[in-house]
Each structure stands twice: as C-alpha cells, then as structure tokens.
C-alpha cells in the first residue's frame, strides 16, 4: 500500500497543551446500542451555526421517520427532520445547554417505528461502496448533504454543505477527517470508527470528491489503536491515509490537528479553508455517506453517556431531540453522588441545569461528574508562575488576558491577543492557584466592544 506509506508533513503533535486523565476506559468497550424509541422528541430548529430552519409542517400533521420538518432557507443553515414516526405538536421553546433559547418542534411517537437492530442496520450497516463514487458529481453531493441537514457532529455544528461547496477564490487540496476525540470520557467517535468504518470511508471519499481534494487524511490520537486498525483496513486501496497523532488535549481542535498532520498554520481569525483544508469529524463523514448513498437525512447520532456519576456508561445511537434524562435513564440512571451533568466533555462541555433538554446534532456525549472530580478549591492570588503560558496551545499569555478582562482593560486585552483565544480551557486546567482563567477570558470576549 504505497498510499499509507506516504509521508505527511506535520510533526503529529502541536506545541504545549495538557494531558488530562482520559477516563475513556469507562465506555470504550461498550458497543453502540440503539436506545428505545422515546414517547416524544423535541427537535430544535436551530441546532447549528447560522440561521434557524423554517418549519414546513402543520400542527398535528403525521410524519414518518426522516420526513422534513423545517427547511434551510439561508445558505448557512441546516434542515431538520423527524427522528421518529409520529404526530407533530405545537412549536415550543427550549433552552439548549449553551444557553440559547430556540424554537423547537415536538414530535409524538405514533404508529410503527423502525427500531433496534433494524434501525442500526439502516444507519450504520449494509454495504458502503468505496468505488464507483465518480457517478456523483460534486454538485449532487453538496445538494444531498444540504437536503439531509448534515452539520458538523463534533460539537460546533457548522452546516456541512457550506464546507463542501467549492470556492473558486480559495481552492482546497486536503480533506482532513478528525478522529482525535481528545475530550476525556467521550468514546462516541471511537466506537463509530471501530464498529462502522465503512460509512466513514465512503463519506470521506464523497466529501473529498465534492471539494476536489488531492489527499484525504484521517487524524486519530494514538491512544485508539483499534480505531486506527479498523479504519486502515476499511480504507485499504482507497488512497485515504490514516495518520496517528499524539494523544494530547486539545488535539481535536482544528488549529491543532491541521498543523499536527499537515504542518500548516491556520491564521488567527481565519478558517482551515485559508490553508486549503476542510476538516470534518468522522461522524459527519458517516452522515455524508448516508445522505448521498442512501438519500437519508441526519436523524440519529451516536452519544456517549459516561462519567463516574452514571450507573452504566454506554454508547448509544439516539434520535435527535430525545431528552438527556431519557439517555441517563437508559444507562441505569444517576448515581447518588452525581454532582454535575455536562453536555459534551468535561474540558469544553456545558453544565446542564435541566435534564429535560433535548439532544441536538452537535451533542457528542453526556459526562456525569461527581464531587470528587470537580474542583472546589478556593481561588488564590496569581503568583505568575507562567504555567498557563506553558500550556496554551495558541501561545497566548492567559494570566494577563484574564486580568485585563477582569478589569475591563480592553487595550491590555488587545495587546495580549484576547480574541485569538479558542477557549480550550488548558490554562484553567493547569493553574495551580485555581484562577478561572478561561472563564474570565470568555467573559472578556463577550464584553469587549467590537468596533
């Protein structure tokens, strides 16, 4: 296989960063299981970056699995579909974990459901072609992805068809799949790579074709040897390269993975597109394959429910719109000492106040932490030890930026490049004085007057 032996220009790591305990053993060996069909789902109309989707269904209208509920009118927007068969309810409002209040459509389960193994086979199983994909034109691929409402499944939920649309001014030569999953506890991408490498490879080939990529690469942290093996096997002969990268937080960030694999530095305030790269999460690639090859929309995703505060950590294939409470119940419920429920991983996830919140396309996991993991140490004065500087993957000076933000000194904040911060949280993780550095910086970024 000459393709896999081809060298990549990156050093397979990035400078600085931290090594939190990965705690993936809790759920790493739990195979993906299909969760029981819930009685109802709440499907938010804005689960993605961009404009909300516009409803096309009426109250009490009967819908089937995968039927369009709301369509994307703006270019940067994504359609949403029914994730089970049933009756549409009234438009409600829900509060997502990130604090946004958005409109949502309720769908009550009604009639026969596709569930269990049949659902799993429909979404992940079956044959995934790796040849003959030339019959799809780039326009067809983008159209199918847009119609399926595919967004980035890694967390930011940026509409995928926007990334795949070719731009004459900024040509791209590399499609980079992100399989690093650097957040502790989360294993959803890992299980997908191990159990269903087929759709990932097909999706990668299709997305690569859409953007006109000369190379398709998959970056996977080297603490997931099984995933690396499974994908190498599935990608044999397709020209896709699997690149093991160092296990280090935040390797899953675009600004870390692209330099690690390709040696290219994404400019501050710019996009991977500026250096000719499109980055997709491995789960997104699988959704692209399903959208193009099977014409099926994004209605389900894999979610890890893990952490020491949950009885039976599992990886679940769940319909979009199911509540966090139901997923936790499916995992045996919360332990008595559960203290915080986090949407996503513990480094960048959002703490939940209300478990009736619906799962969205960007939900990669639920981490339930106990008092033992949470820090309750009192904040102490900064001794300027410089550890935050030593760990900042973007080479900022977090202590100065946090101080500037605290005192609303925007000149100082600008001098220390506050807006370059990507809020990965390494600084707050490393601070021996327990100063909430990234929290202060986040506040500063929200408050700074943008002229």
């Amino acid at each position: 296989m000459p393709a896999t032996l081809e060298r990549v220009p990156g050093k397979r790591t990035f400078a600085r960063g931290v090594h939190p305990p990965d705690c993936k053993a809790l759920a790493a060996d739990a195979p993906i299981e299909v969760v029981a069909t819930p009685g109802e789902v709440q499907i938010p109309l804005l689960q993605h970056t961009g404009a909300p989707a516009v409803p096309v269904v009426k109250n009490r209208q009967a819908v089937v699995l995968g039927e369009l509920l709301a369509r994307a009118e703006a270019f940067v927007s994504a359609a949403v579909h029914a994730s089970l068969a049933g009756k549409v309810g009234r438009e409600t409002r829900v509060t997502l974990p990130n604090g946004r209040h958005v409109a949502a459509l309720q769908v009550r389960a009604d009639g026969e459901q596709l569930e269990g193994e049949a659902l799993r086979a429909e979404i992940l199983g079956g044959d995934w072609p790796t040849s003959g994909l030339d019959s799809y034109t780039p326009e067809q691929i983008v159209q199918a992805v847009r119609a399926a409402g595919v967004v980035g499944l890694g967390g930011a939920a940026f509409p995928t068809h926007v990334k795949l649309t070719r731009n004459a001014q900024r040509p791209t030569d590399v499609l980079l799949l992100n399989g690093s999953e650097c957040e502790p506890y989360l294993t959803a991408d890992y299980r997908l790579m191990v159990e269903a490498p087929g759709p990932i490879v097909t999706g990668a080939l299709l997305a690569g074709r859409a953007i006109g990529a000369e190379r398709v690469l998959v970056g996977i942290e080297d603490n997931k040897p099984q995933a690396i093996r499974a994908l190498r096997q599935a990608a044999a002969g397709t020209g896709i390269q699997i690149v093991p990268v160092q296990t280090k937080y935040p390797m899953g960030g675009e600004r870390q993975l692209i330099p690690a694999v390709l040696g290219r530095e994404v400019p501050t305030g710019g996009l991977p597109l500026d250096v000719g790269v499109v980055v997709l999460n491995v789960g997104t690639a699988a959704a692209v394959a399903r959208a193009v090859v099977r014409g099926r929309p994004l209605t389900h995703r894999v979610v890890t429910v893990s952490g020491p505060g949950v009885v039976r950590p599992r990886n679940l294939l769940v319909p979009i719109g199911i509540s966090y409470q139901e997923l936790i119940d499916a995992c045996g419920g919360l332990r008595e000492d559960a203290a915080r429920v986090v949407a996503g991983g513990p480094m960048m996830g959002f703490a939940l106040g209300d478990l009736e919140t619906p799962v969205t396309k960007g939900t990669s996991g639920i981490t339930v932490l106990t008092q033992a993991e949470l820090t309750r140490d009192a904040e102490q004065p900064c001794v300027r030890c410089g550890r935050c500087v030593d760990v900042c993957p973007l080479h900022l000076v977090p202590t100065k930026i946090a101080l500037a933000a605290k005192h609303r000194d925007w000149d100082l904040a600008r001098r220390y490049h506050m807006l370059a911060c990507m809020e990965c949280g390494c600084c707050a993780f490393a601070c021996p004085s327990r100063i909430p550095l990234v929290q202060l910086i986040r506040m500063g970024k929200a408050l700074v007057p943008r002229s």
Partner: protein
Amino acid sequence: MTEEVSTQTEAPARPEPGFYVAPAPHLAGRGGSSSTRWMMVDVLVALVPVLVAALWVFQWYAVKQVAICVIACLVAESLCMRWRGRCGSVRDLSAVVTGAILALSLPWSAPWYVGAIAGIVAVGLGKVVFGGLGQNLFNPAMVGRAFALVCFPAALGASAYQADGTVLDVVSRATPLTLAKQMGEGSPLWPLFIGNLNGSLGETSALACLLGGLYLCLRRTASWEIPAAIVVTVAVLGGAAHAGGLSVWGAAEHLFGGALLLGAFYIATDPVTSPVTKRGKCLFGMGIGAVVVLIRLFSGYPEGVMFAVLLMNAVTPLINRWTVPRPVGGPVPVRA
C-alpha cells in the same frame, strides 16, 4: 403515610436534588505542585541541602539565624494580614520561604535584631504594601536584605564575616569574594564546590545549591530557563574577564563562589518577580548574570547577586511587555 411524615420531621429541609452549574472546564489538573502552598513546600524541600550545608559549616549560628528570620517573617505576615482584615495567608507558607532565604543570605555573625528587622521589612515593605502574595514587584527577601545592608553596613559588610577565636574555623579567613576583590587572591575550586569556607550562611556550598536547584527545576516549581541563563551568562562573562586579566577568578570560580547559585536557583526563580514567558525568563536571567559580573568586577561591593536580582525585578514588567509571544496563527487581524 405515617412513616413518611415521621421521616419528614427527622430530616427536614433537605434541598431538592439539583446540579451545580458552572462554566467549563469542569476538571482541574492534579499532582505535582498543583497549588501555591505546595509550590512553597517544594521550595522548602529544595532548601534542605542548603540548610544542611549551612548547619555543617556554621553550626548553631545557622540555626539561630534561620529561626530568627522565619519567626520575624511569620509574625510580620500575620500582623499585617490582621491589619488588612484578611486571614489565612500565613498558611500559604510564603513567609516561611521568604524568611529561610533571607536568613541564608545573611552572614553568620549578624546580630539577632538585624535578622528580625530584615524579616519584618521583607514581608511588610517587600510584599504586603504591594497587596500581598503575587502583587510584589521585588523579591521580598532581597528587599529585607538590602534594607539591612543600608541600615547596618557594619553587620553585613565584608568585615562582619571574618572573626578570630570562635568555635568555627572557617570564619578565621575572609570570604573567597573578599579575598579575590581586595587581595587579588584566587580560591581553590574544591572547597568552593563543597562549601567548607566563609561566606553567607547558604552560599558557601555550590553542591547543595545544585542539588536543591535541580529538584526545583525537575518539579517545575522553578523555571529552568532562569538559572540556565544566569549560569551561562556568568560563565561567559566571567571567563572573558579572566582571560582579559580583569579578575583572578575564572568562569568556574564565578559560578561556584559567592551567592551565585543560591541566587540563580532560589532567589531569581521567584515566579512572582520574574517574567512569565520563556523568552522573558531567558532575558531576565541574562540580565542578572551580566549585572552580577559587572558588580563583582567593577563596584565597591564584592558580591552583586542581591542588587542584580532587585534591578532585574524592576525591569520584569518591561520584559513582560517586550516578550508577548506571537500567537499561533499570528496576531488578531484588525477589522477594517
């Protein structure tokens, strides 16, 4: 029903089970010296070899001096904190570290009130007036020592180190620095390295400073860049001065003699008063090394570590300003 009621009355006012909500990250690093208190404990552990060497050379004079300075610093800290209406800062152990380092920088013969006044000034003027731990511009121990040097020049001058007729043999000779400065006399390297000769309490043994300093750097409580930059600069400049006939001391004597290693590993590495970036730390160390050599060669004082540290402390905010690192991806673009 009745049972329920009874349990209600026995365990009243249990709040509804709820979840604390807080912004990410939800984890914090553990292990190593992961709190300011543990950093101070690390410094104290690293000071053990130096204290042992001082005990070996100066016997109970060392015990007395360390005890006086530590107690003075602790008393000053607790009094000042009471005046400021704060509590708890004595427990961060920073006053103990300041006291120990101050004592190790004094001569064996300093009377008790010199150590006590220096200790009170170190914490009071060196730290608390700036706002306490983390706010001070200058190294507190060095502020205390400088104050004592100005007030009691006789007790800290070259003559204070030398005395005849005591139980200590080593103090019958002048310190190696004084010998080199005033008589142009070199010193054999081995005693400089081991430490059985005259000097301030903690400075005589290069070996002890290296042992403790290495521990500090390996624990990453001290940044290795600062001592490395100081040592390299002093070695280069000291060696050049020796080659140029300016000094009887060569590079090795400049490194092992005087308070250089004590200053490089324990005093200059105080994180509060040194720059935060790697580049800044290198500049800071180079500055200290250069000033030490300049003072040793051209000033009236035999040793210059204290002045070098204080001088570079004053420049630290400026160095921080000069060495803002370039963010990965370049500076934030200015929007038109």
